[in-house]
């Protein structure tokens, strides 16, 4: 299980290859064995998400700095479409002029950031891990390049949205108003219903946050696994007959291309859904029952 791949002497079997690719470069030096361990930091997730976030910000800043009211260039036109789209969605969902000044740019940032992180899936699955193994000289070095295929990354984002929901709940309704709502919605204002109301609110917040993060994670994780399995199909050819092997190799090219094309759709769609749900949850924080 702990043996890596890329060793010239013995090729890994399928399970070892996939497992090695699902190991994070973390502070403990080996893949996490327990389900929950807060002492471990996944360096690769942190690194790639921060670098991609900075890259996205830099790109948006550069286009914004060169923006002209004359004939827009292609980058400016694309960004204008994007900003208008996000702005319209924000207007339709968050009915508060004051908070929209923060929420709409937040939604744009979330969309661009999640899109860039998801897009790391388009790089060949072995490219960056192989480069990393070459640089470090350790053929068993771990590296995962898709930050959103790591549950820590996506749940981090959704917990951030949850905290913002708390913030806007308190800001709009006041601390007292929000506590009042926690105990009187959704069933009604009656001392007997205080406890069921509160339990329902806790369940609602938990379910919203967990499904928000899990949805993005599940899509990206399954996509990454399929890319790995397709890569395995291409790797199987030395061990088979020339005809079967070459057919498999061609098959891996075809299926890999098809899945990559379909994955473009999933990547954009999931980034969009993540942004929409962020807006919807923040919009709910503005509505009082």
């Amino acid at each position: 299980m702990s043996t890596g791949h890329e060793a010239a002497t013995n090729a890994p079997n399928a399970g070892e290859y996939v497992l090695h690719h699902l190991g994070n470069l973390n502070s403990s030096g080996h893949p996490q064995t327990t389900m929950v361990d807060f002492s471990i930091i996944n360096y690769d997730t942190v690194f790639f998400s921060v670098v991609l976030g900075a890259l996205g910000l830099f790109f948006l800043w550069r286009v914004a700095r060169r923006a002209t009211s004359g004939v827009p260039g292609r980058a400016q036109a694309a960004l204008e479409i994007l900003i208008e789209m996000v702005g319209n969605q924000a207007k339709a969902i968050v009915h508060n002029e004051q908070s929209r000044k923060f929420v709409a740019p937040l939604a744009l940032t979330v969309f661009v950031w999640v899109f860039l992180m998801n897009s790391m899936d388009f790089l060949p699955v072995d490219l960056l891990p192989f480069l990393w193994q070459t640089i470090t000289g350790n053929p068993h070095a771990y590296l995962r390049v898709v930050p959103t295929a790591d549950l820590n990354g996506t749940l981090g984002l959704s917990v951030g949205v949850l905290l913002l929901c708390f913030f806007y709940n308190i800001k709009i309704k006041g601390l007292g108003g929000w506590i009042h709502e926690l105990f009187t919605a959704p069933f009604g204002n009656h001392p007997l219903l205080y406890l069921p109301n509160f339990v329902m609110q806790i369940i609602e917040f938990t379910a919203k946050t967990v499904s928000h993060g899990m949805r993005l994670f599940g899509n990206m994780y399954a996509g990454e696994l399929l890319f790995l399995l397709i890569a395995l199909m291409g790797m199987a050819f030395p061990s088979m007959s020339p005809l079967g092997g070459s057919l498999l190799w061609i098959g891996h090219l075809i299926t890999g291309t098809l899945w990559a094309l379909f994955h473009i759709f999933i990547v954009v769609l999931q980034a969009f859904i993540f942004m929409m749900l962020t807006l919807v949850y923040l919009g709910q924080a503005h509505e009082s029952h």
Partner: protein
Amino acid sequence: MEQVFGNVALACGLIIALGAIGACIGISLMGGKYLEASARQPELMNELQVKMFILAGLIDAAFIIGTGIAVWFAISTFLK
């Protein structure tokens, strides 16, 4: 151990298959309704299309999460 692996393999198949059935029925119902609605009111097409894609992503999510968990079971047991 082989018995356990066999059961896990069957379970993975069931997780993926049942999830796929549900997601496909959901998508087909929604797609059919979308086509009906846009045949009735073509001017709503673009607006409805955005909503349809969002819902497609939401419908897919449970299935995709199930697939991820099933494959995770698979590679941590019988594919290891």
